[in-house]
């Protein structure tokens, strides 16, 4: 059972990386990063549940991770709203002012 759950979390993490590499919308990028963070959190819960069920350490860390991921997305959305007001788009391929 443990191995299949670890595989699920690995799949989520890889999907997140794939999304980061291919998405053009900045919101999509944020969602992909969320996916990676949640995969890591799932990892912790799974290890806690199957390997060390007597203590709750991993699940406690997971609660903190969820809160922090929300804070991260909050700042991200604030920056994106600011950019959208100026550019009318959140397409990351148009974010190319900073070069050399």
């Amino acid at each position: 059972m443990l191995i299949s759950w670890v595989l699920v979390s690995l799949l989520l993490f890889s999907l997140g990386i794939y999304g980061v590499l291919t998405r053009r919308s900045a919101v999509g990028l944020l969602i992909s990063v969320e996916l990676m963070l949640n995969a890591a959190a799932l990892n912790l819960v799974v290890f806690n549940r199957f390997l060390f069920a007597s203590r709750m350490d991993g699940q406690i860390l997971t609660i903190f991770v969820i809160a922090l991921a929300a804070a991260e997305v909050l700042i991200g959305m604030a920056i994106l709203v600011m950019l959208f007001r100026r550019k009318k788009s959140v397409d990351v391929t148009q974010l190319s002012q900073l070069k050399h």
Partner: protein
Amino acid sequence: MNLSLELMAPEIIVLATGFLILISDLFQKSKNENKASSILAIVGIMLAACSGLFLTDAPKETLGGRFGLDQLDLILKEILLLSAGLVIMISPAAMKEKSEQKITHFSEFFTVILFTLSGMMFLVSSRDLVTLYVSLELATIPLFALTAWTKTDKSGEAGVKYLIMGAIGSAFLLYGLGFIYSITGDLGLKAIQTTLTASQLTNPSLYLAGALILAGVGFKLTLFPFHMWAPDAYQGAPTPITAFLSVASKGTGLILAIQLLLKVMGFLLQPFVFGIAILATLTMTLGNLVAVRQNNLKRFMAYSSISQAGYLLMGFMTTKPEGLTAMVFYMLVYALTNLAAFGVLIVHIHQTGQEDITSLRGISKANPLLALSLMIALFGLAGIPPLAGFVGKFFLFSIAAQVGYYWLVAVAALNSTVSLYYYLRLVRQMYIEPENPQSQKLQISPMSILGLGIATVGSVVAGLIPYIYDGILATSSQWLQVWLKI
């Protein structure tokens, strides 16, 4: 549970000052009046630094062993406080009208800087993975907001890029921490270290965890394959934040590396010394070669700081006290020297509105002292004796020689020579090129002069006072005895 909150005094003072500035802002008439809040912030940081001096000699713990304090932690905290204080001193120069990167809402700006500073200080003292991860995010998330502070296209773009890359970095780190947890079943750093040492490298997922954690640390420390965000974030961010990113954020990366790679997995480092040497070589070479081609001052400083991270990494090649000492000492020297350079660059960029290297042309005529201070800082970064930068680099290079990596010393020395070439490009613009007809006398406030003076004098004398290095050496040998039993 024994709750001794006085161990947290510096952090609590920093946080309280942050909130105080936020509240005092309500009673200010003009939103762009920054005198009161900057003085308040500096007083708060000085109080925190003083309170740190009164804290313990022996290592102590509180909050059920989740928050610890020893001498090395205090030294790191004082370095962080010093660099944040200097940034706050030199940042009001960025209020001038000329540049599009003008900073507004100074009270909130200082508050957010103080919050991220408190996160960095909690990170130093964290003794379990929950505290470590939470304080790391407290140190990182406000920096995203600071990067996008000026609400221009460039600043916003830098903010988005930094945010995405920073979040990916912390996801990698967390995934790695998950595997560490799967091996040990405990979140306390001490317990993890004990279990890992007992298991003696039998577990392949330990290597996976090590690699993932190295990636997470690499994002913060701008090591070679993970440095992509740095030039963009540095160029787009408001100049004081560029200074803060290059010093304090890099310091956070170093502290994270000390906490996780040295403290928890230190016994594992021995077989991977060659890998560290390769990583250091790639990082410093890439930073130096690309910096040669840069024309934007802030982007130039970004690549220069990437190459400095490469030098810094050489300290991880040994678990002897000298390695740790060399890294902490170099961090102090680098903070002083880099902030001296940025002190001048902030004044220049925000009063002329130009960020090109050629815009420095002939400024030594109208502003001899500013040019002199920038020249000293650049020579310090290049490592010219007798400046502190040379002493710091010498200790780092000697680590590589001690473990028998003479080719790395040669590569690093060669890199220093390359870096001297591009630092001299700036000096040439300032001193040798004919004066720009539009060049003007730059205005500089007393507060900035003080900050710039401290940083410049510090970057000259820090290498000449033997007490500093010896103090750090004594502390770190003690620290290594406690943590690694060496």
